[in-house]
């Protein structure tokens, strides 16, 4: 255990926290947008997975990073449109539709992977591209901080940028206002002439695009291949992060960092003499604890409010 502290307090560990937070952050932001519009997107896990595969396949066939990322984003948007169509037009329960989407992605990606790479497990036979890492000119010369913040994958910077963009989008633009209105009281929004369904469609599409970016990062940045079920519950962890962050972009960012920390910890602890199973459990146990702590706090708040009412 005494080996652990120096590892955690090293710059390379802090660097890796940002690295593993990126996919969770993208998915958490995706969860915020759809949740604000009153549509829960349980399908994030499946959307990310499918986008990760499409990023690999399209970048391998076109040999272009940009097309790969765009294809991943397009896949995310497309799948979220399917989710929107079934849940908003055909009135399927949105949770069941999301679960169906996850099941479909889990099998469908293996199906496509087999067709594209003749392999059911991993895509290494495809010459896919990765999004490059960049070092930022001014920041990289700052001691300590430079080593942590510079030299990341472009998508990591995009995800950080998205935290602010989503904040501005939700709280400073007309569409953001409408999304929030629709989520809070759809009837009131409807009565002032906002098309609830259209707004929810848009929210789900943006959510899908963000999850698509998360997927692209998984297979074109975090690692340079696609492997089956590679998202490993990150879409669900994102839902917990969104809940813990109370649906605000900044709060969610902090929650995502906590989960990223747990993920990174689990990565570095693999070299220590701890049973592998316990190490692999860390991110999931952290998520459950986080969810419980958040729920307790919420509960106390409601109780206090009720007491004051009486």
């Amino acid at each position, binding site marked *: 255990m005494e080996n652990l502290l120096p590892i955690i307090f090293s710059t390379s560990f802090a660097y890796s926290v940002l690295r593993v937070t990126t996919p969770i952050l993208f998915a958490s932001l995706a969860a915020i947008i759809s949740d604000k519009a009153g549509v829960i997107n349980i399908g994030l896990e499946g959307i990310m997975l499918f986008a990760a595969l499409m990023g690999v396949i399209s970048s391998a066939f076109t040999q272009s990073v940009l097309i790969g990322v765009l294809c991943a984003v397009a896949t995310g948007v497309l799948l979220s449109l399917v989710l929107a169509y079934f849940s908003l037009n*055909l009135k399927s329960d949105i949770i069941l539709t999301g679960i169906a989407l996850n*099941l479909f992605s889990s099998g469908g990606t293996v199906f496509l992977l087999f067709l594209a790479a003749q392999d059911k497990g991993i895509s290494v036979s495809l010459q896919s591209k990765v999004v490059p890492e960049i070092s930022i000119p001014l920041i990289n010369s700052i001691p300590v901080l430079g080593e942590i913040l510079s030299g990341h994958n472009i998508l990591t910077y995009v995800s950080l940028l998205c935290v602010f963009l989503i904040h501005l989008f939700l709280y400073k633009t007309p569409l953001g206002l409408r999304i929030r209105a629709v989520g809070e009281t759809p009837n009131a929004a409807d009565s002032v002439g906002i098309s609830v369904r259209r707004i929810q469609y848009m929210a789900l599409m943006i959510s899908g695009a963000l999850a698509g970016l998360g997927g692209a990062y998984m297979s074109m940045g975090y690692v340079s291949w696609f492997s089956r079920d590679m998202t490993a519950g990150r879409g669900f962890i994102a839902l917990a992060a969104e809940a813990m962050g109370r649906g605000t972009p900044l709060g969610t960012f902090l929650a995502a960092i906590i989960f990223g920390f747990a993920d990174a910890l689990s990565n570095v602890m693999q070299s220590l003499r701890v049973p592998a199973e316990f190490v692999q459990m860390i991110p*999931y146990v952290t998520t459950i604890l986080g969810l419980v702590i958040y729920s307790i706090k919420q509960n106390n708040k409601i109780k206090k409010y009720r007491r004051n009412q009486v």
Partner: protein
Amino acid sequence: MSNKKIETQFEIIRTFVAILMAMTLALLIILLVSKQPVDALTSFLTGPFSSIRRFGNVIEMTIPFVFSGLAVCVMFQAKQFNMIGEGAFYVGGVAASFIAVKFLLPAGIHPFAAILFGGVVGGLVGLLPGFLKVKWNANELVSSLMLNYVCLYLGLYMMKSTIRDPNAGMIGSYVFPETAMLKKILAGTRIHSGLFIAILFIALTYLFMYRTKWGYALRMTGLNESFAKYSGINTKRVIIYSQVIGGLIAGIGGATEILGMYQRFQWSALPGYGFDGIIIAILARNNPIFVPIAAFFLAYLRVGADIMARMTDVPSEVISAIQAIIIVLIAAKRFLAKWQHKRIIKNSQEKLAVKEG
């Protein structure tokens, strides 16, 4: 014809249309990707019935599907989206293997004790998301999904540290003693006596849901929680026991599967039956009576797809499209709703005409 009857009729029609549309899409996909589409289709659709052994495979697979389907039925009837079936099934298998390897018991009692222990551990796992929900209103969907991973790693660790066979050549337990295994009941297949346990549980679950006070309270809570609460039902208790029972059934399923189909414990990943349970429960409309039919259908699809993947160039995962479409179309309230609406109006008008005439 009463309007209620028309509604039931339409539920059946909708189910079949959904299955038909899903199958059509799968056939289109096969036509698109395969160089030998006729062979692929034949082996997919008729393969499971082409030999006793293959038909046996379908029944073998139906058994765990029945358990996971029943588990999801109970939880979904109470409107609890608890996904713990997956983890409970896994730890149920681990717990049963533990009893099977560590204890020496007579033949009849050994599997009974092992399966019972599997069920208890499964129930305990199901308790956790239910407890967190009732106590602090923590979302059971997220907590149970995370808990599934914990079940996998904790179960695997427990297995490794207690009953792992170092000479197995893989990550697995010691071979189960003869006394612990469930007997094969049909020569030429691997169908085992777990089939009877599955049938017993279909009956028990049905009786519980539709013939007991607890089952009634459970269904009422699922239909309308606030209404149930104001009519004096302790909904918190319902939410907890629905998930404990769900976990228990899934745990028993895992135990039965491991003792019936395997020589030793060797699952190094979640087996996926928990999520299959969702498809089955939706096909069966959360009614235990229809669970065996739905389970058999899904097993037929799986075995057919496996045969197709072995004989031709189409991977078996093509059925993930079928499953997803079946779920969303059956869950879709608006699917064929207009048609149903028209029938009901016409029916009422006819009745009115008869009355007036």
